[in-house]
């Protein structure tokens, strides 16, 4: 019978068994099944295309516009948007953003893990605990920011109502440090629940027999945590680190409502400059700087192995 086209690359050895020669480079020379497999994979990519195109076009196109516009001043190329920004609180904003982002991120991850580890244990109040812990997720950021501003006031406020029972009062807006502190705390309050839930999913996939076996082998609670718990949730931590970290750098509503424009954060800086018509260029340049910082952060996290691996 005639040799099918796809078999032209085979030859028969002495035992009349077919032996592969080399893989074809030309697509049309591919055997039918490989062409079909390729077409199928392409089809699946097509399914994903609308979402991917949407996300890329809606983020890249405006971003490129902003980058371009940041280098324009009075209709010609200039770096004045960047140099002028220095006088507009650029460095304080940068530092504040970095401190709060890193600090809040670490606090959130630690506490989220603690919350997740509590949620996973069967105990009497577990249901209530889990319900309470999820509430911040349902409160609007702006609302929570306002509540915290009522709690952490310069004079009085609910925090001081409690502290005065011990004879102390704190002016929460006295220094920029304390203001950074209350921003971090509010941020922690709002975001820890979601991370806790993500980590909970990871924790619940660890089978208890692993802990039992380790315990029999003489591992104390700390060692068990280090060698069983942490590795199991490591991929989820990586994701949380990436997503939450980026979101932390992007922090906006919270500081805006809680502390206004001072102490400055990158996003509030951008916003204040955007609102004033004269300084729109500063808004662009500050945006570009923030973008670069975020990209560097994301690159670092990914390079350290933050990309998810499919466990199956």
């Amino acid at each position, binding site marked *: 019978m005639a040799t099918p086209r796809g078999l032209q690359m085979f030859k028969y050895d002495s035992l009349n068994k077919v032996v592969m020669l080399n893989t074809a480079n030309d697509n049309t020379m591919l055997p039918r*099944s490989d062409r079909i497999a390729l077409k199928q994979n392409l089809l699946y990519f097509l399914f994903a295309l609308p979402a991917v195109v949407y996300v890329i076009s809606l983020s890249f196109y405006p971003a490129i516009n902003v980058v371009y516009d940041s280098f324009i001043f009075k209709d010609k190329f200039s770096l004045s948007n960047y140099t002028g920004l220095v006088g507009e609180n650029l460095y304080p904003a940068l530092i504040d953003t970095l401190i709060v982002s890193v600090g809040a991120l670490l606090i959130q991850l630690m506490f989220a893990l603690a919350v997740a580890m509590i949620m996973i244990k069967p105990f009497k109040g577990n249901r209530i605990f889990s319900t309470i812990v999820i509430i911040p997720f349902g409160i609007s950021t702006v609302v929570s920011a306002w509540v915290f501003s009522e709690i952490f006031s310069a004079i009085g406020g609910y925090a001081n109502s409690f502290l005065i029972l011990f004879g102390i009062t704190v002016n929460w807006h006295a220094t920029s440090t304390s203001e950074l502190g209350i921003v971090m705390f509010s941020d922690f309050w709002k975001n820890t629940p979601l991370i806790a839930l993500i980590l909970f999913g990871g924790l619940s996939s660890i089978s208890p027999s692993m802990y039992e076996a380790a315990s029999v082998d003489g591992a104390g609670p700390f060692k068990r945590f280090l060698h069983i718990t942490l590795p199991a949730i490591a991929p989820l931590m990586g994701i949380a680190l990436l997503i939450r970290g980026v979101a932390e750098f992007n922090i906006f509503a919270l500081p805006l409502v809680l502390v206004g424009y001072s102490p400055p954060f990158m996003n509030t800086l951008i916003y204040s400059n955007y609102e004033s018509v004269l300084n729109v260029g500063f808004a662009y340049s500050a945006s570009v700087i923030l973008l670069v910082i975020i990209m560097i952060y994301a690159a670092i996290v990914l390079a350290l192995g933050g990309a998810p691996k499919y466990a199956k």
Partner: protein
Amino acid sequence: MTTKLKLQKIYKRYGSKLVLNGLDLDVEDGEFMVVLGPSGMGKSTLLRVIVGIESLTAGKVIVDGRDVSNLPPNKRDIAMVFQNYALYPNMTAYKNIAFPLRMSRMPAAEINKKVNEIAETLKIADILDRNINLLSGGQKQRVALARSLVRNPKMFLLDEPLSNLDARVRFSARTELKKLQKELGYTFMYVTHDQQEASTLADRVAVLRNGQIEQLDDYEHLINAPKSRWLGDFVGDFPMNFIDGKIIGKEDKEIGFRDSWISEKGNDLSATVEYCQVNEDIYRAYCKIDDEDEEETTPGKRSVVSDDKKTSVILRVGKRYNPGDKVHFSLTRYNVYLKGLLETSVTE
């Protein structure tokens, strides 16, 4: 007997590997064909290519005289039971079985009749309303089977459907399956790596190796006259014994014999027992063939030929031997192999 399924020069390539390599096979109408082979050798791929969920690199699949090679799976009229049953989760057994009938737009009353009929046959009528998540392994297997039978397709492909069951259930499921197939007269193609299943179920066995059918025969012939050394080794609960042909004066050939093809009354060969295994009332001695030139070893004196180089054999013996004992035996029956292929069978 008509040919139900004809596989013509099937090739299937994955990347640079040819998983199916010019395979030819004919399955007769009403036959229970078992495809036997070691794991990972392409058995599942073969089924997937026949049913159409994988595409062929080259070749033809012909069902009832109709070339289905280019048709999608839902047009080939072939049913398949997957290894993990692929039951539709969160649906009742009834809904699972009715699914294929709903796909063919059968009226609800007729679907009801057919589902109940098949449930009766497979003795699962009482669990039809249960959610399949709540069923036992054996029940799930029967639901999967019912789902494939309810459509009256041209033929059935089964991919190791019993391997997820525990041993006792597997045994009864096996015999029930064989009985069912005979009663209903369907054509089954069943893939497994389990020797017991092949021997119990098959009308004919096709042994798959290196992408081709190495031998196609009923199980008895496969056991007694395996066409190659590899087959002798692979087929059967215990591998075939192979010894150097010089023992019968044919030095370039190999002698293959099954553990029961010996008589202890003879004295042609002797072997030293390493250990003896008892299974119900069958004794098997795991031995090493003694070298002809070797003297009787006395304790303390090492043998001339090192143990590693000696040939291992398994012998069916009449009584329990102790390690170190000698077994003297002759061959009552053996096959002669030249360059790994069967030449002749000899019966003394």
